[in-house]
């Protein structure tokens, strides 16, 4: 397996990790803010470097150079492949944008040290394919939001119940699985079925699938917007599905998950329409979109999977930007009520444009990064179940209405008089321009991204045993664990892109 030219992965984890320790020691919030921007920028630089380096290698997966963990643990802990390669810069970008768009008035509320710690955990999770380590990291990642809610004096019971159950299911499922405790096939049939079900339930819980989604709205109401956004926007629940559930689950189970996710997508889209609080609205909007990603992931067809992987990136980027623009408005106006028109357009037209662009991109508007992904997703869904395709279109239509409704609510409909300027700061304008360039640029030139995602989808299916023929689907359908998941990196055959 090829190596990256530099230890990008380790650097992108270590920089925020050490930075978190450093910022924790700083007294000045202003200095912490400035240093955090620099550290997030460096992390993004490493993540982008990894992406470019990986692209140059033309390989399906690659190890880190000078693998420190490999020397210590005799195992390659950090590996990048076509699935995770673009997710790392996306996650780093979200963190950088969030930190950059934090107003000075909010410096005391948003913890930069915990944000960097979360970033390190997230990047480590996305750089890792070892299920046990992923599970451990996912468990650790639940801690910072919990601490923040506690420190703000809010009840953490909803979050604790759900995340506790998530960690329990994930750990239990993994311990019961034959990959962790191998045994004779027939004897462990029920255990493996139970293990698969537990892992799936954990992934669905983390993804906020109905009816175990209430922790998400609770998180958005009780944590800071930035923390909640960064906890859900990278869609680590979907990552768990891809790394742990997809390789082992039979097709019928995946299709069942797809149906549940579809119900969530439509339900959340409808719920977004009746919200009166902007945070809850955003939560449901995001939930609807992330569920659509899961729908595509579980269809397990090349087109559907490609669409889901494209939508994963586009939703992460667009709804990340959408959330940040909402956060910027909230930082200026306080908690945003959707019961009345705010009329902020004339005060901050740039923010309004960003809001509209990111919102439209999230619903797959033509010319934006979300368009092709959404088309592929619907195409894939129609190919499996035509009714599923219609439901996806319905969810997208409802989301489109919701996005425009909130745009009108926040930016139009009234004349707002403010004693202070509400316009965006230069640093926010830079963030807006970067996001707009990525969203529109990705929409105008989608072929490289789609080709990359298609290749990743085919490879994921091949590893699962579904490609190139469908013959293996029947085999996969008889058991949750038809084969040992290809976890150990040494077992993965070296693949070179044609």
């Amino acid at each position, binding site marked *: 397996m090829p190596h990256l030219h530099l230890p990008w992965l380790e650097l992108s984890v270590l920089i925020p990790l050490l930075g978190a320790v450093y910022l924790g020691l700083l007294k000045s919030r202003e200095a912490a803010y400035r240093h955090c921007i620099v550290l997030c920028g460096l992390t993004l630089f490493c993540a982008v470097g990894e992406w470019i380096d990986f692209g140059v290698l033309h390989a399906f997966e690659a190890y880190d150079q000078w693998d420190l963990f490999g020397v210590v643990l005799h195992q390659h802990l950090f590996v990048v492949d076509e699935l995770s390669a673009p997710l790392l810069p996306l996650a780093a970008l979200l963190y950088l944008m969030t930190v950059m768009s934090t107003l000075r008035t909010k410096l005391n509320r948003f913890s930069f040290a915990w944000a960097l710690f979360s970033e390190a955990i997230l990047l480590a999770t996305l750089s890792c394919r070892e299920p046990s380590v992923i599970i451990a990291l996912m468990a650790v990642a639940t801690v910072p939001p919990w601490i923040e809610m506690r420190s703000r004096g809010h009840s953490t019971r909803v979050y604790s*119940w759900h995340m506790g159950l998530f960690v329990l299911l994930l750990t239990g499922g993994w311990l019961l699985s034959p990959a962790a405790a191998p045994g004779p096939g027939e004897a462990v049939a029920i255990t493996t079925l139970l293990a698969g079900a537990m892992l799936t339930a954990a992934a669905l819980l983390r993804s906020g699938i109905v009816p175990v989604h209430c922790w998400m*709205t609770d998180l958005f109401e009780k944590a800071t917007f930035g923390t909640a956004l960064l906890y859900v926007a990278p869609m680590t629940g979907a990552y768990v599905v891809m790394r742990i559930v997809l390789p082992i689950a039979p097709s019928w189970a995946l299709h069942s998950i797809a149906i549940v996710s579809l119900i969530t997508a439509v339900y959340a889209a409808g719920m977004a329409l*009746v919200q009166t609080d902007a945070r809850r609205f955003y939560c449901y909007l995001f939930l609807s979109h992330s569920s659509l990603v899961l729908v595509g992931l579980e269809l397990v067809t090349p087109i559907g999977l490609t669409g889901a992987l494209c939508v994963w990136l586009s939703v992460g980027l667009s709804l990340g930007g959408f959330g940040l623009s909402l956060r910027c408005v909230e930082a200026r106006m306080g908690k945003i009520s959707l019961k009345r*028109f705010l009329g902020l357009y004339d005060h901050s037209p740039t923010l309004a444009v960003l809001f509209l662009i990111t919102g439209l991109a999230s619903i797959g508007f033509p*010319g934006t990064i979300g368009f092709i992904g959404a088309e592929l997703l619907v195409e894939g869904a129609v190919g499996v179940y035509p009714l599923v395709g219609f439901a996806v279109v319905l969810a997208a239509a409802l989301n489109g209405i919701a996005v425009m409704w909130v745009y*009108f609510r926040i930016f139009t409909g009234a004349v707002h008089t403010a004693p202070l300027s509400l316009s965006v700061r230069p640093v926010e304008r830079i963030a807006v*321009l970067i996001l707009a360039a990525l969203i529109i640029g990705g929409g105008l030139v989608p072929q490289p991204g789609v080709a990359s995602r*298609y290749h990743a989808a085919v490879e994921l299916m091949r590893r699962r045993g579904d490609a190139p023929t469908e013959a293996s689907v029947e085999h996969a359908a008889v058991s949750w664990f038809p084969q040992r998941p290809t976890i150990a990196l040494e077992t993965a055959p070296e693949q070179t892109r044609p």
Partner: protein
Amino acid sequence: MNLDLIFQVLGVCVVASPSLLLAIIGLMALGGRPLGERLLTRLTAAAVVFGMAAAFAILVLMLATGVRHVAIDLGDWVSIPQQHFHFHWKFMFDRLSVPFTILSFALCGTVGAFASRYLHREPGFHRFFVSYALFLLGMVISSLAGTIETLFLGWEFVGLSSALLVAFFHERPSPVRNGLRVWCVYRIADAAFLVAALALHHLTGGGDFDGLIGAGAWPEGHASISPSHALFVGALLLIAAAGKSGLLPFSGWLPRAMEGPTPSSAVFYGALSVHLGAYLLLRVSPMLELSPLLCAAVVVLGISSAIFGALTERVQTDVKSALAFASLTQVGIIVAEIGFGLRYIPLIHIIGHACLRTLQILRSPSLLYDYQQIENAIGSHLPHEASIWRRIVPPSVRAWTYRFAYERGYLDAILDDFIVRPLLGVFRWCDRMERRWTSFLSGSEAADAERNRPAESPLGWNGPQGVESPDQETGALETGSPDQESHETGVPKPGASPRGGFSASEDAAQVEDRS
């Protein structure tokens, strides 16, 4: 230079000019450096003239050489060859698209010139022209689209720009609500369009119109799908066309769209956008021919919309709404013509009607002034003769018809009461249950959940119980309940917009005139 190359160059110029216009205006605005009024106006004029000149050149070349079908293939936008999936950039110049494109450029150019004076020093001058450029690009792409996905692209651009322009005077809630209403209808229509496009992909292996309607030049093509498939796809496209053209049962958005500035009303809802549905039906007309049932549905929809428009137009109290319903009448007739199997007549009808209606709407702001001048000159009101219907139709029927037309066929109320309100009621109930559940898990009191309960629908409907909340200044789709401003008529509030309608006194004068 051979003929094909000339066609290629000219074809690219036609599409590139509005694209560049949008890119320049949009990027400058995004960068915080919007163009000045004069530069913006000149740039717009240059783009329109350049694009129209290229389209004219193609027309002349086609007439001179006898070529009836020119395809400009720009390659695949996205392609996954292994899965036979591709999004093709292809533009088609034929007897349908060339006249429609030239019409789009001509009317947009006229309205652009008009708007540069009409909106002079208006705070939203630049915003108007961004939407205008988006609309122009959408119309050109829709007109020339050689694949259904390209058509969808333009279709969406037109929809977005329309919604934003209806809400142009965004300091007041009413235009915004109406803009959202338009957007909602468009999203439904777009969903139908998208499903139709995907179905076509599956049936023909791609979205190319050549694959669907045969390689013959329009209108002689023959569809290559079965009648049952044609019925299914055609029905979806008919829904899409009905939404875009304001046909029944989506007609409610047409008068609401008149809340926008007069130039956009003229070019969008009087001339171009409202004909886009009919254009779509013309484009897929070979498919219609496969299914008599589909043709019958098109005819019925067209005629019923025309009758509805004719009735409703007569009782409108502001001139722009009256013109909107008059447009609906004509569009309904055009759709019926398409259903009857005519091809060139509807095209000519579209062109003639679009030009006439643009002129009428652009003239509408000064119409009352003209009337007053005449009345001042003759010293009395203008004479009005009683209609023949007054003598023929019994008073009870007249009263019922008047009420029906006055309430615009109760269309909005039906959609709101039987579809939207129940749907939102269900979700609101779910929201309450969720809040109670999280409150229970949090250990907080049930009263907490009640306190957090949304008092009213953000989309504007009251609760399922019909209880109005104290701070009911919401609206959005509730504009369906024809406006907060004028509950009785459902027309945009008279005089609400300095540009969008007349004053109350003017309206009263109109009502008096009509009576």
